[in-house]
């Protein structure tokens, strides 16, 4: 009876699902919950998962105790993948999938490309900057300048992300670019309010997902990951602030 359950495969499926979710910006409570649910659906009721933002430990209890550790070093934001893994875990829970099937589906998701093309993302940042300018009581004649500053800052962030490993430096340079571009527009006389242009243009750099995840993790009692994500968000905010302040030095 016990021989029929492919323990190693189940561990691999759980870890792969957890890894994809953690890498693409899910909260750790969701990661742990999903892994335990998948294991339970495959017939291993006794499983434990411990995940932090940088790694996952997963172990099965019962007749064949086994555990595995996986290290997560790169993190990005792709909530589409999180949604896909979530729906796979749902169909596993309703017993529609074998471990092997689930593993190959998860591998497909892991290797799939980004959700939106690069230019769409940059365009989104471009538009968002302008919209935030209006929301923060800016004037319509500054709209396009805020758009351009925000778009340039965000593309700078994406480019430096690929070039360098140090994320805070990329954010610093990106917000420095935002500040300098906005100052340039005001200097040549096309932009009227420097403050609102910078505030609007800097919004695409705000670590919104980190803030949300930190709050959600703390609520769920995952103190380690909640605090570390909060620190991450704080450092990012500090980098953005430092970049803007550095731009003021040139004023």
């Amino acid at each position, binding site marked *: 009876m016990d021989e029929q359950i492919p323990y190693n495969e189940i561990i691999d499926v759980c870890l792969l699902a957890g890894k994809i979710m953690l890498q693409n910006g899910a909260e750790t409570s969701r990661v742990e919950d999903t892994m335990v649910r998948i294991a339970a659906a495959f017939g291993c009721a006794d499983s434990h998962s411990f995940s932090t933002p940088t790694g996952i430990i997963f172990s099965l209890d019962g007749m064949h105790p086994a555990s595995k550790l996986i290290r997560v070093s790169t993190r990005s934001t792709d909530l589409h993948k999180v949604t896909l893994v*979530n729906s796979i875990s749902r169909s596993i829970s309703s017993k529609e999938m074998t471990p092997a099937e689930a593993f190959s589906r998860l591998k497909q998701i892991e290797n799939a490309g980004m959700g939106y093309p690069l230019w769409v993302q940059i365009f989104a940042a471009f538009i*968002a900057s302008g919209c935030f300018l209006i929301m923060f009581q800016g004037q319509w004649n500054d709209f396009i300048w805020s758009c351009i500053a925000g778009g340039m800052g965000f593309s700078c962030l994406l480019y430096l992300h690929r070039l360098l490993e140090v994320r805070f430096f990329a954010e610093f340079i990106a917000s420095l670019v935002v500040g300098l571009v906005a100052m340039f527009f005001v200097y040549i006389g096309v932009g009227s309010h420097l403050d609102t242009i910078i505030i609007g243009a800097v919004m695409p750099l705000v670590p919104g997902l980190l803030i*949300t995840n930190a709050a959600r993790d703390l609520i769920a009692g995952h103190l380690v990951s909640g605090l570390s994500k909060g620190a991450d968000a704080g450092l990012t905010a500090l980098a953005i602030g430092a970049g803007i302040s550095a731009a003021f030095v040139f004023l």
Partner: protein
Amino acid sequence: MLAQLITSFIASAAFGVIFNVPKSSLFQCGCVGMIGWILYYVLVQNEIDSIMATLSAAFVVAVISQYFAKRFKTPITIFNVSGIIPLVPGGLSYNAMKHFVVNDFYVAVQMAAKVFMLAGAIAMGLIFAEVMNQLVIKYNRRKMRLRN
């Protein structure tokens, strides 16, 4: 007001794109962001303290996100993120930073403290909504049990 509605909708949906939210959820993301921002905007226009306004807007955002998450069977984070973004005190932290740069620490620290309070208000709004959600689930379960 109309401009606020449209821009907050577009900004929240655009943030969804930046975070690679699935295409089918982008519209709901925009709606969540728009409702949260309009609530905040109206409250602040009526001279209610911005901390209170942020708290209630974050609460409403989280409640609507829970509804959407259940309805469309997607992770709640997707809607939470887009709804929270407009509430982030970007302008105030910018001003705090600006005062720090010119060595006007007296004003800068005051503003930074306000920024922390607002960030805390966002978190508290999310927490209240979560607690309420759990209470509703427990209440429903008890009702089911009593009926059986």
